[in-house]
């Protein structure tokens, strides 16, 4: 999930965030100020989220550069090509904000692995290659499985979102009510 953003984080000051709250607007002028403050906060929030995704996409490019030549692992690996990078970057952009960003790893067939690892026995892993078919697999304690889903470049397949959601829910349940 995207981290909670505070006014102090965004602007270094509390007032604009407080101004953005509905209850603080009374007159027309105050409403206009509130609207402007809301926009400032919203833009800052959007920049923060996009910043995290931009950083993740930079990591993907760095990985691809590292594995751009044939046999990068000394065992006959295929290079990670631009198409795989574009697909992986599109996947990251398409991830809803409530999903944490994954870790990345190169695969010997030239795909990029997007891994959500909660523990050694709780892993969800998606392979993004040059085509639109995503191979994915998971282990959740004793439950495990694998499947393939089609990615249209704009929307993360529902089956993958649902799969990750199950992990997130059980992670939250493990914390328990307070």
């Amino acid at each position, binding site marked *: 999930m995207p981290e909670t953003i505070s006014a102090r984080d965004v602007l270094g000051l509390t007032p604009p965030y407080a101004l953005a709250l509905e209850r603080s607007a009374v007159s027309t002028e105050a409403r206009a100020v509130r609207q402007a403050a809301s926009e400032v906060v919203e833009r800052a929030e959007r920049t923060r989220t996009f910043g995290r995704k931009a950083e993740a996409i930079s990591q993907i490019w760095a*990985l691809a550069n*590292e*594995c751009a030549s044939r046999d990068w*692992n*000394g*065992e*006959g*690996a*295929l290079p990670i090509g631009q198409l795989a990078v574009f697909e992986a970057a599109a996947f990251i952009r398409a991830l809803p904000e409530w999903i944490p960003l994954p*870790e*990345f*790893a*190169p*695969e*010997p*067939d030239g*795909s990029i*692995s997007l*891994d959500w*690892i909660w*523990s*050694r*026995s709780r*892993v969800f*892993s998606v*392979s993004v290659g040059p*085509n639109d*078919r*995503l*191979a*994915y*697999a*998971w*282990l959740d304690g004793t439950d*495990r*499985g*694998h*499947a*393939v889903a089609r990615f249209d470049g704009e929307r993360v397949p529902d089956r993958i979102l649902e799969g990750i959601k199950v992990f997130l829910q059980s992670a939250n349940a493990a914390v328990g009510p307070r």
Partner: protein
Amino acid sequence: MLPSGLAELVADEEDLARFLTQSNHFNTEVVKPAALLPSPKTRETSVFRHGPSPLNTLWAIGLEAVGTRPLYGAAIFKAAVVRDASLTVEPKEPPPRHAVILKWPWMESDPDLQKAKRKELAILIVSAAGAPVLR
């Protein structure tokens, strides 16, 4: 008996080391499944028959095996884990102590689904391996 002096059959209780030469293939707590996926060329995963100790012997074998590539550490797991995942492990010397994990699912009819299945099996192995042994 193999030239290395090891038995021709890899016993279930034997430790296998998969050397880690890619910094993105592990974090401090786990080895990632990508580290175990087989080569598209040979359809095998290369491993060495050695446990976590003594460490200096493990790294000597590793440095010999990886050549000019960096050696960050190793994922270590029992041969039984590989067999529990419906895969096979067989010796393949030289180099001494070398073995391969084979029989990865690889049907041409649906390569993406086969890939997903290989991922699942790789996850099973890394899950059993736990934290990487780092240099």
